């Protein structure tokens, strides 16, 4: 009995780590730039395809291709902020929503055109293996993904708290006008925020590749969970998003185990509604990180 529960919790935590990478990106962009990036899932998809092609053409392990996907997506993030988002940052929200939503549709359909709707998988030596602890098992690929995801989240936290640029980002997210008055260049900070957020999405893509298939719609699966996690963990709160993602992974897994495999999401959304009913600002208590 306890093994079943423990196994469900392990499964939930492991997939929650991936949700976390996506949701931290969304919440970081929202916290700093104050826009909702609807295209975040599509950047996970791009990360997956980069990893897939590197593995397929050059035999590079998806974990090694992390070193390619993260910088590439960082640059894409900077370019998107500099050439697109910067131009719609104003008092009106609608152009920003349209921009990121259009970006999502564009990338999705480009991927369909270029890569077709086929599922692409990468087979690594650890894809189908697992560590066994008595009755319990921990899939190797997921464990690696979880550990790297947590390490990246930790690195981001250190960056935000202990570097000048990180502090500038937090300052810009707390009060953009005052930060500007203190000599912080908002566009530079926003560029870095977008870059980091997209690099995390790319990392999620590379980490997913050993155990999940790449296809043009793959981002949509993860971005839904990411948005819930972002709201649950208080908009703009990185630690909140991380904790919420892990909770959601566990809730989904337990839901599948004890309610039904087609109702895992019911538990997740019930958790979201209950949290919002008692703590309307989310688990983070309304503090942006």
């Amino acid at each position: 009995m306890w093994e079943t529960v423990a196994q469900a919790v392990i499964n939930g935590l492991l997939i929650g780590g991936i949700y976390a990478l996506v949701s931290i990106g969304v919440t970081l962009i929202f916290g700093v730039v104050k826009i909702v990036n609807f295209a975040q899932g599509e950047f996970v998809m791009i990360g997956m395809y980069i990893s897939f092609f590197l593995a397929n053409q050059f035999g590079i392990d998806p974990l090694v291709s992390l070193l390619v996907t993260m910088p590439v997506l960082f640059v894409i993030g900077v370019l998107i902020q500099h050439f697109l988002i910067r131009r719609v940052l104003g008092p009106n929200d609608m152009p920003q929503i349209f921009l990121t939503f259009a970006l999502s549709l564009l990338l999705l359909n480009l991927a369909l055109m270029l890569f077709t709707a086929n599922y692409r998988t990468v087979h690594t030596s650890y894809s189908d293996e697992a560590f066994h602890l008595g009755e319990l098992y921990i899939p190797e690929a997921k464990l690696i993904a979880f550990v790297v995801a947590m390490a990246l989240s930790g690195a981001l936290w250190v960056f935000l708290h202990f570097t000048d640029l990180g502090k500038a980002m937090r300052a810009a997210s707390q009060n953009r006008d005052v930060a500007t008055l203190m000599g912080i260049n908002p566009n530079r900070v926003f560029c870095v925020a977008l870059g980091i957020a997209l690099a995390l999405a790319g990392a999620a893509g590379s980490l997913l590749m050993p155990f999940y298939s790449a296809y043009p719609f793959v981002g949509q699966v993860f971005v839904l969970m990411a948005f819930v996690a972002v709201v649950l963990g208080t908009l703009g709160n990185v630690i909140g998003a991380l904790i919420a993602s892990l909770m959601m992974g566990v809730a989904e897994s337990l839901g599948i185990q004890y309610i039904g495999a087609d109702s895992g999401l019911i538990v997740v959304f019930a958790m979201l509604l209950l949290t919002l009913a008692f703590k309307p600002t989310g688990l983070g208590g309304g503090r942006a990180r």
Partner: protein
Amino acid sequence: MRKDRQGSVSNKAGLDRVLSKRQGRREFLLKTGGILAASAFGAVPMRGWAADPVNIGALYPTTGSMAQIGVGCVAAAKLAVEMVNDAGGIKSLGGAKLNLILSDVQSDTTVTRTETDRLITGNKLSAIHGCFASALTLIASEVAERAKMPLLTGSSSDQLNKGRTYTFTPFARASQFALAQLRMSRLVSDKPKVAVIFENTAFGTSTSNGLREQAAAEGVEIVLFEPYSAGFTDASPLINKVKSSGANALFSVSYLNDLILIVRTVKQVGLNIAINGGSGGFVIPDFYKNVGKLAEGLQGVAHWNHDMDANAEKVNAEYKKRTGEFLFEYAGGLVAQTFMIADALERAASTDPQKVRDAIASLDVSSGYAAMCPGSKVKFGPDGKNIHAHPVGVQWQNGDLASVFPEEDKRAPLMKT
């Protein structure tokens, strides 16, 4: 013509008005002259020596989430039409060639409704085949019924045989798949304890209900019966449930992506269980490409397999040459369907959909490409079901699908896993 009109509009807006007027006049003369000439010498006598082609509609998703199967279907549909035409077309219609009109239903139910409607109203069709996915085919069939347009489909949903007059299903039904799957489980164990997991769609629900209803009569115990929402991120919780159920066989009614996750997870858990992947995403080349040697020995059921007879092997060889992959059940089945339509056209000696429908209803073949199905006989009952249809049990062996069940369709011995 629209292009010409656009051209003249832009000319008018151009700098040289005189020139444009002269061009317009010349264009007019050319066009009217052309039309006159065409009607006087071209179109009318042409009918005398080359029969008008017969339009066949094909509805398949070549974009969207179901595209990987849809694209293969289109390749097979084209191949089938070429085969009919190369063999001399429809002789009773003066050697008329089949003309395939393709329509992409985009893996989407709403699009399927409008595309089917557009295909039927926009073209003079004689029959349609499509769409492979049950959810899409059910809708296409509704539209076709209303437009009184015969539709042949390999889709297995039993609902397609309820209250329809223009829908014909030459291959095994979901309920029959279930029976075959249950009987196959006895190949693995004398006391089969089966866990059934299925996606909560029309395809998954109808197939799994068939399994549940017939299990007891077949002496098979179902220890877990679990729907899941297609497109999950993680199969572990589901496999966790399978493990705690104590099953010795696993029936998974899923499309490709979910099935890959399920098979991999079973391996990770170290669960020793015989997997029967059913049909759908399990019996297509992509499955092997994605799962690799983990797929070896896995069992499934199909309404068609390429090792059935010499004709099927011949089509398979040609399809392989073109696409690099073996002819999977749905694509192979629709080649047979095209020949069934050709046979009906031949006997109807008419392109009128109503007459073609009646000719399909009275189809009775037991040889040739039209009879390319397990059992090699096609004859439709009043509900549009092929009364001889039954599925074949298949197993992945060396990257190919081999027919292993039932005895009369067996082409290779069952590989022990």
